[in-house]
């Protein structure tokens, strides 16, 4: 499904700010895998996501999606099949446009080429958007004419999730997408994520700082340190792991404590 083959990325090469964010990272993700990712700040989790999404082109190595080499594909081309959610709920929606307009843009992924350039939102589209929005259970289906800027962070993130999965993506990247939300809303958005991913069988990668979540959600757990995957577990072995084991694994894998205050707090 997704294969990262020895990818590397160094930011600001040749300067004092040189930072090797990814170093010969390899990963093989099977169809329908839902892997959680943990790691300290600066381990390269978001950088790996950005490499997959195409925000930048990797310095070395190749990226394959469904056996197609997408290493040099542009971000907007990849985004046809890759959904990407960020920690910041403001990143995924256009604030001054209405809910239905935002959804219409998300629906663009489904349309091939230029045939839909001059079509407007039809009543059929509206009915479909309304139906989808109702699934969120946030009452957004009755606010479709309102600009997204008026929504709360949780509502915006739920909407972004809906938009990213509206047209089923091959791969969904969730970069701590519940971290900026209050606990109740975060729980709700996570439940929503799990049900959508399970229902459609979407292959998914999710960064989290919650160690319980890392072990409970999905079917595989990855641990990153210094631009590499240092621990990878699934199946029986994963089922037996406790949070303490996971922290211990990190120590073994990286030779240091997991230095992340959010991990300790959660």
């Amino acid at each position, binding site marked *: 499904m997704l294969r990262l083959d020895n990818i590397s990325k160094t930011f600001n090469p040749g300067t004092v700010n040189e930072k090797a964010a990814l170093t010969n990272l390899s990963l093989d993700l099977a169809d329908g895998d839902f892997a959680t990712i943990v790691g300290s700040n600066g381990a390269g989790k978001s950088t790996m996501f950005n490499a997959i*999404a195409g925000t930048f082109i990797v310095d070395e190595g190749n990226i394959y999606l469904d056996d197609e080499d997408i290493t040099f594909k*542009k*971000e*907007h*081309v990849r*985004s*046809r099949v890759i*959904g*990407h959610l960020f920690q910041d709920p*403001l*990143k*995924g*929606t*256009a*604030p*001054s*446009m209405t809910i239905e*307009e*935002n959804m*219409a*843009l*998300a629906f*663009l*992924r489904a*349309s091939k080429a230029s045939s*839909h*350039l*001059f*079509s*407007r*939102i039809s009543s059929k589209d509206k009915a479909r958007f309304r139906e989808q929005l109702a699934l969120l259970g946030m009452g957004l289906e009755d606010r479709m004419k309102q600009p997204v800027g008026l929504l709360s962070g949780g509502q915006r993130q739920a909407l972004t999730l809906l*938009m*990213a999965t509206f047209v089923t993506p091959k791969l969904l990247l969730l970069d701590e997408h519940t971290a900026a939300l209050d606990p109740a809303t975060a729980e709700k958005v996570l439940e929503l994520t799990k049900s959508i991913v399970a229902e459609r069988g979407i292959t998914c990668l999710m960064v989290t700082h919650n160690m319980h979540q890392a072990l409970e959600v999905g079917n595989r757990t990855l641990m990153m340190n210094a631009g590499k995957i240092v621990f990878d577990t699934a199946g029986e072995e994963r089922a037996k792991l406790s949070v303490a084991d996971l922290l211990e694994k990190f120590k073994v894998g990286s030779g240091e404590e997991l230095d992340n205050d959010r991990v300790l707090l959660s």
Partner: protein
Amino acid sequence: MSSLFSISIFQSALELGCIYALVALALFISFTILNIADLTTDGCFTLGCAVGAMVTLAGHPFLAFFAALLSGVLAGFCTAFLQTKLGVESILAGIIVNTGLYTINIAVMGFSSLTNLFGCDTIFSIGKDTIGSGVIGDWYKLLIVGAIVAIIAVVLWWFLGTTLGMSIRATGDNAAMVKSSSINPTFTITVGLCLSNSLTALSGALIAQYQKSADINIGTGMVTIALASLIIGQTLIGNKGSMLRRIIGTILGSVLYRVIVAIALRLSVPAEALKLVSAIIVAVAIAAPYVRKKAALKKREFANYRGQRSQGVRDNA
């Protein structure tokens, strides 16, 4: 009042307001929607004026508008190409194209800085012959430009609601979101700038026929004047609300600007002073929200300081 403001002055202010409203709408697209300060405007207006004048001179008053539209698309494409494909800063891209257009414009007019259209058929002379008699009388010009602006406004409103139009709006609203929604920002910026500059050039061609002349310096300061109109319109209607409302607001802003200019001229303000006045309107209008925020902060700071002072005095007593 009647001596200060006769009907004919009001009438020509309305006519000019409608014609220049197209430039204001162009900036509505580039400045408000795409969030790009497109400085191609000045040169592009003159380009439309020059192209329109030459084609009119050749005896094709209607073709002149389509030629002008096309020339505007090309100018907009150059600016967009520089900033999206060659990495030139958007403001610089506009300035570069604007400078280059000076040579193009003077070349279009056969290396003369002034072209007269006296005796040529224009949309206005044709309009006068066909509808300029009877009830309509002197108002035929306003009818023509009003109809053109109304058509453009409706088409623009329709376009901004299409998938492509929405993609352009999203590009100015949240660039990161656009890329992750499979929209190519290079494409949307290019289409947006081509569209906005075609409207600017169309306005130039209308002015050429309206004034029966084209002048190499006619576009100077146009971007500031159009921004002033845009801002007046936004102040009138508000920056929120539906697209149609905002488009109408922009047109009203342009008309109001021309009315203000007409009154100023009537009050013997020298014509040369108008550009300075426009510049001040724009500077004040854009600076106002920032200054208001700063002033509110200063006020709190001062109140806080006074509070502490009086507390100190009480403590000492």
